[in-house]
């Protein structure tokens, strides 16, 4: 049994993790080892004009470990990522999150490029400008061009920050599919399994404040009747399937240029049932492939979209006696802080593995550089391999 206590530093342990995964991917998937010396444009899919380019970010959440995803023993859980998406991707083997490992605050950190310190369980906006606010302000885009589809009530403020000169009205519109379904359904008992707000505090859901998506907009914007929505929801097996259904409608009817989807089924791990955690990963894997295929089929997205898939963070290591393995993300150990990222589509070099450490705060400046807008308050750096 390898003990992580032998490592002297977070960085060294992260490198070890990346080395293990990179070596496997190179041999099993025939992927090339990338280098920061090679600009991605040498072999990249052509990027469209920036005004037409679209970006979709999927957080593969909440909290997935290497050993159940890209580590050799976990790859059977992600056949779609391995077989369909990885060969088309630039794969970053170590994305390190040094912030707070709570889903809302970590997702907010991903969206601002700053390690946010807001209360994970309170209904509060991020304290720094979000990617959506930068995007809209600099590129003068309307509110219909930036959307977030998020899993639980606690995410309803993620679309815009409390930062002076940004804030209310300047960010993304946020859809909370569960909230929408709760409003549409007369009897919650019929949809109980789709309405569970979160898994970390399953007995408590924060009250909604701020600009949640109104039910009437279901028909006005998504062009779905309440009855059709309820009928379709009955055919679904999880909250993330509901989110993807909403995303498909949004892509078809609104076609926003910046779309952020936060998956959350995997976080059922907090209930301690390993089979449910694995099912969550398998479902998220399938849903990511579905969204990639949807991108290829939708005229507004095909050939002009760059897709990013990354977990918000990992989960506790089996070896850390302070935790209980996959169940939680409370120890702050190296494995819980180190994850991965797939980038694929327009402007991205395919089939390449990059094993240098990337900071989770780098996502926002990278998206800013890709779409040519400023992300002045973000603390990360653009990922050069994607430029």
């Amino acid at each position, binding site marked *: 049994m390898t003990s992580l206590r032998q490592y002297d530093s*977070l960085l060294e342990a992260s490198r070890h993790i990346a080395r293990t995964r990179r070596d496997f991917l190179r041999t099993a998937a025939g992927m090339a080892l990338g280098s920061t010396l090679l600009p991605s444009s040498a072999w990249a899919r052509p990027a469209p004009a920036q005004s037409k380019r679209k970006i979709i970010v999927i957080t593969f959440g909440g909290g997935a470990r290497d050993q159940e995803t890209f580590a050799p023993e976990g790859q059977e859980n992600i056949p779609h990522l391995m077989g369909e998406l990885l060969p088309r991707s630039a794969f970053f083997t170590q994305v390190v999150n040094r912030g707070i490992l709570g889903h809302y605050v970590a997702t907010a950190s991903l969206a601002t490029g700053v390690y946010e310190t807001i209360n994970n369980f309170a209904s509060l906006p991020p304290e720094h400008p979000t990617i959506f606010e930068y995007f809209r302000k600099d590129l003068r885009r309307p509110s219909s061009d930036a959307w977030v589809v998020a899993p639980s009530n606690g995410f309803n403020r993620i679309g815009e920050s409390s930062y002076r000169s940004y804030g209310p009205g300047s960010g993304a519109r946020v859809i909370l599919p569960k909230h929408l379904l709760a409003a549409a359904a007369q009897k919650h008992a019929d949809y109980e*399994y789709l309405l569970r707000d979160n898994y970390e505090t399953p*007995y408590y859901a924060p009250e909604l404040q701020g600009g949640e998506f109104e039910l009437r907009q279901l028909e006005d914007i998504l062009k779905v009747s309440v009855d059709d929505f309820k009928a379709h929801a009955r055919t679904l097996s999880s909250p993330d399937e509901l989110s993807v259904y909403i995303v498909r409608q949004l892509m078809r009817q609104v076609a926003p240029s910046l779309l952020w989807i936060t998956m959350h089924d995997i976080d059922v791990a*907090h*209930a*301690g*049932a390993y089979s449910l955690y694995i099912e969550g990963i398998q479902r998220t894997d399938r849903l990511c492939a579905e969204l990639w295929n949807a991108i290829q089929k939708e005229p507004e997205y095909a050939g002009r979209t760059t897709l990013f898939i990354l977990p918000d963070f990992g989960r506790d290591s089996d070896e850390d006696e302070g935790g209980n393995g996959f169940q939680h993300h409370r120890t702050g150990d190296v494995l819980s802080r180190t994850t991965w990222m797939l980038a694929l589509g327009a402007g991205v070099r395919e089939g390449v593995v990059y094993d240098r450490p990337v900071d989770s705060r780098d996502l926002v400046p990278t998206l800013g550089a890709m779409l040519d807008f400023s992300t002045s308050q973000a603390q990360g750096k653009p990922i050069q391999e994607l430029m």
Partner: protein
Amino acid sequence: MLPTDLKPESFRAYPPEAKTLVENYVGSLRRLPLSFIPSLLREVIDYDFKFPAERRSLEQELANWSSLSEGTGKQWVEGFAHISLSPQLEKLDWVNRPAQFVEQLSAYLWTTHQLDAFRKAAMDYADRLHTAVPTEPPPVPRLGITVLGQKAEGHGRPLFRKLRPHGAYYSRLKPEGGLHELLDAIDDRAKKHPIAYGHWYIDGGEAAEHSSAVTCVSYKALEPTRAVLLRKVRAEKDKPGMGPEALRTLLAQMSPAELGFGKEADPVLERFQVKLLTEGSGTQVFSTTFAQWAAREVLRRAQPVTLLVRFAPRAKPTNDLLSANQDQAEMDPAGALVDADFGAYYNWLNQQRLSGAEKSAFLVWFEDHGEALAIGPGVPRGTESTQAANLKDVLSWIT
């Protein structure tokens, strides 16, 4: 209040045995940093309800700290001394509410990016303590047994994958009477080596017949307690001002009497069972989570020499988590088998964290089937056997 202000009377509200214990060490406790001392007092305040093994550990830790010179003591807690705390934390009643302090400290460490520094300080301290006060070997080599797959017809993925590199896999055992053989074996050990809270049987369903020499906890027996707990949570969660932290604090403060205990004469075991349900995540709703978490806590706290854990089917997750009728939900034996297979790995990992690991033995069996895996000092690792033996034979080979 700061640690330097501690006086014997500061602990007047502590339970009697805890009070007596801590009053002997007030002088040395004054030398501990505030970032550290509530974690220690959180253990001290529960001293009256602790198992013998954890009482010993706590007594040794306090005695060790007291024996250190001022200079050496400073070195031991140097990392903690560098942790900065907020004025709000300093104002908390950390003497009488150490658990609440630790919970708020944890949130504060995350938000101020001091978690890694605190973690390193804690690991350094634990390493020094283990060196200075080595844990005693158990009086008899430990035996862990996990029984899984009750009512499961088969499995899609090979069983015991995480454990196979560490032991021998048996594919053709005779399953008839297997559970009784295992229960007889733990009863025999309990009678031969009478140790208070040294031999345990945890059942994720209804406990099978067993000797009174074995301490038993079962999910079924706690059904009324779980129902009371869920009713209380349902009543409290929508009250004004309630949030996740407040709800967690409320759960942590629930007493055995509030949850319907009090008829049995074992307050230590009652308190332990309450903590399983109020501090464990998912233990109230999934029997597999209950069994795994109970095993973890038994190993961590009671440090038993014998532990049999039997997993049972769990409810499907499509029902209301707050329903008091969890046990009437549709069951998922196949899912429970996957849960328990990984749970068995955790049971083994947690057993190996205890003293005497090199001599410990472990057996995991697919109930009513011929598959099992054995780990022990003389068992060749990563091997397979098609020998037609029974579980009693396998146990005799590893113990």
